[in-house]
């Protein structure tokens, strides 16, 4: 277990968890816990802020995370997202790192089309469109991504299609991904990442956590990321075992 360095803080990184009450049903709170701990272990000070509907939007955040929710939770946050849409879009285009999981990933897309055919507009930060389905896509997932193999668990009824030229977050090696047909999973535009993966995604995939923290550290301090060498043996073993098990590789 790496100790939290006792030396002077390298700077304060402000993490904003969007709608922790409504949009973190599947353990996505774990992403926030993970970021907080790793920021500290890298020698920075972590400040975690929850943003709730109706509150002033924390524009000074360095890293934004959002999770999955139930349909009822999603309805509760839509107005707040619309009210703050311009701020969030400009933060995104300015390079602010963001990780949006499941329901929040869908809301960062162009639109969600319900089973009944109603079109609910999203923020349009990611060029993706989600079609509501009767069938749910549920199960463990393995992806190939820019940070290597990523494992997680998906549980969504929406079927998401990438717009022309939209980069996915990863390629599906096991599981359904965005829609169960084109082997894409999630989406990435600049430093904004969208994905269906719970698990939660960050603890077992520390490479992704550190990518986000590095981007946030640069924004927070104006200096390049100065990471500490962390021991991730347990996370690597947890991930490696899932990869081998799901891809049928003998261990």
């Amino acid at each position, binding site marked *: 277990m790496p100790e939290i360095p006792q030396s002077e803080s390298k700077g304060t990184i402000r993490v904003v968890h969007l709608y922790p009450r409504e949009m973190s*049903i599947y*353990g996505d709170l*774990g992403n926030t816990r993970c970021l907080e701990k790793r920021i500290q272990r890298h020698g920075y000070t972590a400040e975690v802020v929850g943003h709730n509907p109706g509150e002033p939007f924390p524009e000074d955040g360095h890293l934004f995370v959002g999770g999955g929710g139930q349909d009822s939770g999603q309805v509760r946050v839509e107005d707040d997202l619309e009210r703050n849409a311009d701020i969030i879009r400009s933060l995104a285009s300015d390079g602010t790192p963001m990780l949006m999981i499941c329901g929040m990933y869908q809301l960062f897309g162009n639109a969600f089309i319900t089973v009944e055919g109603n079109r609910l507009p999203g923020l349009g930060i990611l060029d993706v469109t989600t079609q509501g389905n009767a069938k*749910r896509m549920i199960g463990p997932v393995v992806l190939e991504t820019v940070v290597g193999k990523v494992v997680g*668990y998906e549980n969504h009824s929406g079927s998401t299609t990438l717009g022309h030229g939209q980069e996915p977050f990863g390629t599906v090696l096991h599981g359904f991904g965005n829609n169960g047909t084109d082997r894409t999973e999630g989406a990435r535009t600049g430093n904004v990442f969208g994905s269906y993966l719970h*698990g*939660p995604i960050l603890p077992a995939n520390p490479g992704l956590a550190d990518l986000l923290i590095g981007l946030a550290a640069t924004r927070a301090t104006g200096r390049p990321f100065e990471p500490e060498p962390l021991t991730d043996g347990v996370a690597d073993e947890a991930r490696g075992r899932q990869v081998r098990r799901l891809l049928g590789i003998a261990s």
Partner: protein
Amino acid sequence: MLRTTAAVIAGKAARAASRVRGGGGSAFPGLVAERVDPRFLEHALADVREGVVVVTGTNGKTTTTRMLVALLRAHGKRVLTNPTGSNFTRGVISSMLKDLPLSGRARADIAVLELDEAHALKFAEVVAPSHALLLNVARDQLDRFAEIDHTARLLERLAGQATEGVVLNIDDPYVARSREVIPEGVTVRYFGLDASIAHRLPEILETDVRFAEEYAPPESGDGAGFLRPRDEREFDIVVPGGEDIGPVALQQRGLAAMINATAATTTARMVLGDAFSPGTAARALAQVRPPFGRGEVVDVDGQPLELVLVKNPAGFTVALSTYGSEPVATMIAINDDYADGRDVSWLYDVSFESLRGRGVAMTSGIRAYDMALRLQYDDVPVDAIEPALVPALDRFISAHRDEPKRLFCTYTAMMSLRRTLAARYDLPEFGEEAADA
């Protein structure tokens, strides 16, 4: 009726065969009986005149069912139940087969059945329950039910099916809000926490975000029961406008068990009416042994080993707060098979800080490394990680031979570890507990 008799014979034969193979508590005999006679359950319950009570909700079904059965039996009722924890309709049939006469009609006054949320509804399509006890709605096996809201809708539909009475958890908005669908003429009663311990509600309740306005509990009305603990095991049930029950001392520790006792007692009072006696109730509850894996204690070479089943954030959180005050050598075994819930994300909705001081001796199960990783993020030291369950148990026991031990595990890990312990330490076979109830 011949068809039912054939089904009883086939079911009993299947039961005998599966017992020879060593598979106690399986749903297989029930499946056989149901194949032979699809209306088996309906026939079996035809002579049960005083009520068919369905107990459902996410947490506490098994313990509450056991307590309710004990309460009714203490009041002289012949009670049919499914105490094996196999709470699907086939499991219900399987557990009935042993005592069922060839007519296929159970000789009992009342049936008390523990049913999983989805199966409770399927059951109600076959046999209308007279009473329903709705315990709580928590996130559990979301890969099966998809959403808490969905689970709440299942329970709400069940509440609407009961023909005589419904008992609801007044503190749980998902449960209490279902009063709106209960038809006129059906009695509604509530159980909950007394104001003196209302501060512990957040650790056991989900937040219901379906509505913009805050949840406001309804008037509790007649026949309600409120839990007022004296310590971790002893409590009173406060009955507004009636005679309080207690003190009651349970064999099982903790807030969860006491809430279950309050729910069971409120239901027994409703079912029994004037025949209910507070003194008889308190004595009956004191005799209830913890069910399989719910705080069951195994004597391992002169030292207690406590088995604690964990399956969702609310359950694990309550278990940790119940046992956290007495830290002992701890092993945690997490599997991710269907019966465990395949998504282990929920471990991140539990706080493990109470284990930080003493640490965790061993993590095991298919997701042993994920559990160890989770503990790392709460700065809980982990001595060893061994995914294979039995070798992990052996190492755990030999490293902590001369001290009390505690084992938290998910369902299939529990089944497997308990089988090993039963073979070594002479425990009642899983599924055979009905005999002593």
